[in-house]
């Protein structure tokens, strides 16, 4: 693999390999063509060209074999606000012309929006268009042979450090030298050591790296050493000597949640690619306490949760409670997680029935992406006078999902 010299950033670290390059020194890292023999190797094999009508861009199959990422502006015109037929995916394109037979008609895509930015547009907040300018496309057929690329969910944090990164894609022009590139050939920009800074929203920028039009939607990879490359974000824009990327973080889960029901029905197996298995822990209290009768005031059972991996997020939340009473309908039970996220466990149901016994009620859907560690509270109210309610036990079962590189399942 040829390494482009980086005279300013990372010159010391790359000095030994940089001398191996035969190219003249360049101040800015610019795209270079990927050798034909490398197209089917990681991470190049995850790449594909994306076309939508007359527009062309780059993309990469990641997280799941039936999903690809690209830049939103490649496939959607925000000014027109009209959905067109979904984009086409051209896997591992590397030729003067796209092979129409190899093209896959995607079924659709999800894109990130928020309403606040629409109304604020009149104030022209700088760079906002790049904030979350990415899509996840989906198909009902596999978009790559073998596994999909892994996602680096800590991409946003990692890219702000001096990490070894590389971009790949299909530039139509080398922006730095304004040199045209014919056809649809896969190029890489880097690897190089760079540090990115916050640009706008979840977009990061860096200087001394130049891609070019057409590279939008391609991946920025971070080098995980022996674990290989993982996709840390999406190239969304740039200037002749600057590059802007949307960097992955836990907010990506919102998009993955939307696309999961669409692709996972045919791809049932979910795996965590970094081989860290889920962990379940129980937190309980057997403190017996009579609730104030008919008083609209909470009696709390706080549970301080610790012992999970750093930054671990909720995979599942189950709660069990036992309350001795002659009337379930008096009771309201609420679970509050760290940061104040709440879910109703019991809402005065069961009029006329005795003791409230709830076993492992699954409340996971209310606590997606919540940090596991912190204070969880099970809260009780006896809202009607006349029947005495005594809490006898509370059990909270929490299961973690590792917060690092992840994939959304591959075909068995």
């Amino acid at each position, binding site marked *: 693999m040829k390494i482009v010299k980086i005279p300013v950033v990372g010159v010391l670290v790359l000095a030994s390999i940089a001398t191996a390059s035969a190219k003249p020194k360049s101040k800015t890292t610019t795209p270079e063509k990927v050798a034909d023999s490398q197209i089917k190797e990681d991470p190049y094999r995850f790449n594909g060209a994306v076309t939508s009508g007359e527009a062309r861009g780059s993309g990469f199959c990641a997280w799941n074999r039936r999903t690809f990422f690209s830049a939103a502006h490649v496939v959607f015109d925000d000014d027109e606000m009209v959905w067109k*037929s979904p984009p086409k995916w051209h896997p591992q394109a590397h030729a003067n012309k796209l092979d129409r037979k190899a093209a896959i008609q995607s079924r659709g895509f999800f*894109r990130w929006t928020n309403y*606040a930015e629409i109304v604020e547009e009149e104030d022209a907040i700088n760079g906002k268009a790049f904030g979350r300018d990415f899509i996840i496309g989906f198909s009902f057929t596999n978009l790559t042979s073998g596994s999909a690329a892994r996602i680096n969910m800590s991409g946003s944090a990692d890219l702000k450090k001096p990490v070894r990164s590389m971009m790949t894609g299909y530039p139509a022009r080398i922006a730095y030298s304004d040199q045209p590139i014919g056809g649809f050939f896969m190029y890489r920009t880097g690897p190089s050591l760079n540090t990115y800074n916050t640009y706008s929203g979840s977009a990061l920028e860096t200087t001394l790296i130049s891609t070019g039009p057409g590279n939008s939607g391609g991946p920025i990879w971070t080098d995980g050493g022996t674990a290989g490359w993982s996709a840390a974000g999406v190239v969304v824009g740039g200037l002749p000597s600057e590059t802007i990327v949307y960097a992955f973080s836990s907010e990506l889960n*919102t998009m993955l949640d939307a696309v999961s029901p*669409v692709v996972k029905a045919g791809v049932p197996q979910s795996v965590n690619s970094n081989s860290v298995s889920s962990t379940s822990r129980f937190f309980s209290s057997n403190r017996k306490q009579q609730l104030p009768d008919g008083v609209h005031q909470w009696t709390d059972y706080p549970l301080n949760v610790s012992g999970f991996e750093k930054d671990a997020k909720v995979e599942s939340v189950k709660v069990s409670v036992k309350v001795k009473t002659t009337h379930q309908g008096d009771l309201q039970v609420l679970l509050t997680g760290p940061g104040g996220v709440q879910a109703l466990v019991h809402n005065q149901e069961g009029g006329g029935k005795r003791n409230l016994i709830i076993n492992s009620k699954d409340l996971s859907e209310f606590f997606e992406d919540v940090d596991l560690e912190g204070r969880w509270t099970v809260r009780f109210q006896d809202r009607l006078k006349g029947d005495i309610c005594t809490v006898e036990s509370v059990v909270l079962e929490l299961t973690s999902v590792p917060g690092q590189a992840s994939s959304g399942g591959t075909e068995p």
Partner: protein
Amino acid sequence: MSRPRAALLAAVLLLAGAWLFFSPASEDSTRSSTTSSGEGKTTTRSPSLRPTPEAERALRDSTAEQTIENDWTDLLAWLDSEPKPSSKEIRERLLALRVSWTEKDLQVLANALTRLLESGEDRNLGLAFRVGPHGFLQSWPTLRVFLLDVLAASDPELAAATARSVIAKTDSADEFAVSLRSLTRKGLARASDEELLTHFKTLLGRSEWKNSGGFGEAFDLPRLLGTTAAAEALARWEGNPKLRNRALDEFSADHPAEGIALVQADTPLEPAARAMLMARADPADAAQLAAVDQYLRDPLRQAGEINAFLESFPLRSATTGYRLYGKHPAPYTFETITAGDRAALQQVTRWMEDPALEAHRGELASLKERLEEWVNQAR
């Protein structure tokens, strides 16, 4: 027991007794006892060696309230200090404060926040209104918006009561929008659909709010309600067309039948927006498919609108993200899409054979090709 330990225990007991004797909690219980006797007698205090659970709770609550008030005072002083803290520093401090506050007794927190809101103290923070996970904000334009945001994480009923009070009086779109959130949460505090729609219409009528982030984020409410009445209020609003159409699109992705009902009721809509509402139809639903057929044959529809419809039908691309009121949109599943595609393919095949639709033959052929590929992929 060793002598020093015994002395220590005696000192602790003495302090506890003295505290109980003079504490407000013990006075409260004395007053209560006197009142119930109805004779105005002076009751004898009996210093206890152990604080009652009520006294313990009162002490804990008092300490927590004091901590919140101290945090607040420190925060105001910090915001007013020179040099001014940066936006990033302000946001990070508030995020940390929310975590710290929500770890306290939530009843105490609700009471303390209500008092702080009633004080009228506020600061402009220079931050955007940004929604984060679970509808909580991750960036707040003012301190009052921050307080209202945290309040929603405390006691649901008290938050709802405070929300109604704010909604009735505020001149801030951001306060209005974040307060409204407390009325949308499941449970006893949830307002009726009618009340929520009334508040939404009030918001739509405040044209001076049109550039506020909170105003924009409140457009998630019709999707939460899912009623034709809510969609109609949205469709008839004559403000920012981009905001209106984006909200209508997200509404119809979740509620396609109600979106189609808008078109059938001849609600004034832009042609492209109307085409997108119809393209969201579920072809596996016979009633929706019949509505689509009728729409396609409507002589009043211009070719541009029909082409936009045929290029996207059945539309399964969608937007998502953090939303203020409802769960983030995830409107489709493998099963619903593939069942719809099969039904759509059958319908398109019929349309292809219908001489009345000859004018659209080219677009129909492209649509049929796409549907055939999708149906084959799904096998």
